[in-house]
């Protein structure tokens, strides 16, 4: 392998896009040519810049608490036990046999081709949407779906909530207006109520009562889209702790 071929592999590695076979060639080449490590490091640094195009999102404080509790018990490895993690061959980190997933993924890919066929057209589409919230894009997709539906409710307070969904996409978005502002230690939480079960479907905040919130998870037709007021960070039990203020059936 020459340096140029290695540079091609290093770029794919930095983007985590290599096949397992190429990942092994990459790792072997790096062992054989330690002088090429600088190429790999530059690519890793460049790829990491792409992370900045995703806006930072503050995680729930429960994750921090849980981590700080765990590290007291979790053993640390020393430097001698292995190569730097970022240079580990992908095969070690990947838990699943790839063959099986690949064959399954092909069907998805066949469908994806249609979904993103417009991609090649490029910049005009890609760049503005890079910073657009998922809920807004999801709403556009739902509205473009052939089975798009919507239902609107009005609360006693005069606030309004409209659910938009598409059963074929398995996707739903709730748009609200005029919802009451909550205390700092409270949040609105979405639920997909399926029969007796309430599945947590994400938290949302309002801006002057308005929100466009993507319902997390795969929505099924017949689910009820519900909203409760929960403590900040969401219901600790994973179940609603208050009566829903909004409930919109999708059947």
């Amino acid at each position: 392998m020459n340096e140029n071929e290695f540079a091609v592999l290093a770029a794919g590695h930095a983007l985590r896009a290599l096949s397992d076979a190429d990942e092994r060639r990459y790792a072997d080449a790096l062992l054989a040519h330690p002088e090429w490590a600088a190429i790999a490091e530059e690519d890793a640094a460049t790829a990491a810049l792409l992370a900045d195009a995703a806006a930072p999102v503050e995680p729930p404080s429960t994750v921090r608490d849980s981590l700080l509790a765990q590290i007291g018990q979790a053993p640390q490895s020393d430097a001698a036990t292995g190569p730097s993690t970022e240079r580990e061959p992908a095969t070690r980190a990947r838990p699943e046999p790839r063959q099986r997933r690949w064959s399954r993924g092909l069907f998805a890919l066949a469908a994806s081709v249609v979904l993103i066929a417009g991609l090649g057209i490029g910049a005009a589409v890609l760049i503005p949407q890079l910073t657009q919230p998922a809920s807004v894009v999801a709403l556009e997709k739902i509205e473009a779906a052939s089975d798009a539906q919507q239902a609107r409710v009005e609360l006693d307070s005069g606030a309004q909530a409209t659910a938009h969904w598409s059963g074929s996409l398995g996707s739903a978005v709730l748009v609200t207006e005029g919802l009451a502002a909550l205390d700092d230690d409270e949040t609105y939480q979405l639920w997909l109520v399926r029969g007796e079960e309430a599945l947590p479907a994400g938290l949302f905040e309002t801006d002057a009562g308005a929100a466009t919130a993507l319902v997390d998870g795969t929505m099924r037709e017949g689910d009820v889209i519900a909203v409760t007021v929960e403590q900040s960070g969401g219901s600790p039990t994973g179940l609603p702790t208050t009566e829903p203020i909004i409930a919109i059936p999708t059947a």
Partner: protein
Amino acid sequence: MLVEMVIDGMDMPEDGTAGDLAADLLVRVAGGDQGAFAELYDLLSSRVFGLILRVLVNRSQSEEVLQEVFLEIWQSAARFAPNRGQGRTWVLTIAHRRAVDRVRASQSSTDRDVRAGIRDIGVAHDSVAEQAELSIEGERVVAALGTLPDPQREALVLSYYGGYSQSEIAVLVGAPLGTVKTRMRDGLSRMRNEMGVNA
């Protein structure tokens, strides 16, 4: 947390002279310093979480992966070599690897397909309350991406944010595999020139 986000901004080596705070903290974490770990978490967790959410979209999975990432950092901080790159790069590389592995391993093909439609056009996260407020650095990245030829940008976006492999991208965009590989190299190389990256 806002304060730490500002510090995170200062940590960005925009002029090449700013100290690498994340690297200093990682060295202390490697020595078993739990306080340094908490500081590192406060410094980088919202950036890491934003990235994971971008790739995974699903919030509860993203929270799990965030936890895995920081546990891995705690356990393997000794493998970070300060002379081989920025602390921040090391952390974000682990986060990206784990997010992509999770999207490949755990999301069913239908989920992934639906999300692909949402994600591949390049989307952020799951609540409009979290309006994308990019840092100056983030805006520079978006601007630099905008200068790439379309096929190169497409290759970077589909792999980095979409979690697609080179062979999957070749199928998606209808280009030969070798072409996709070269586009990634050329795309990263142009990004590097636009942004002035030092490893």
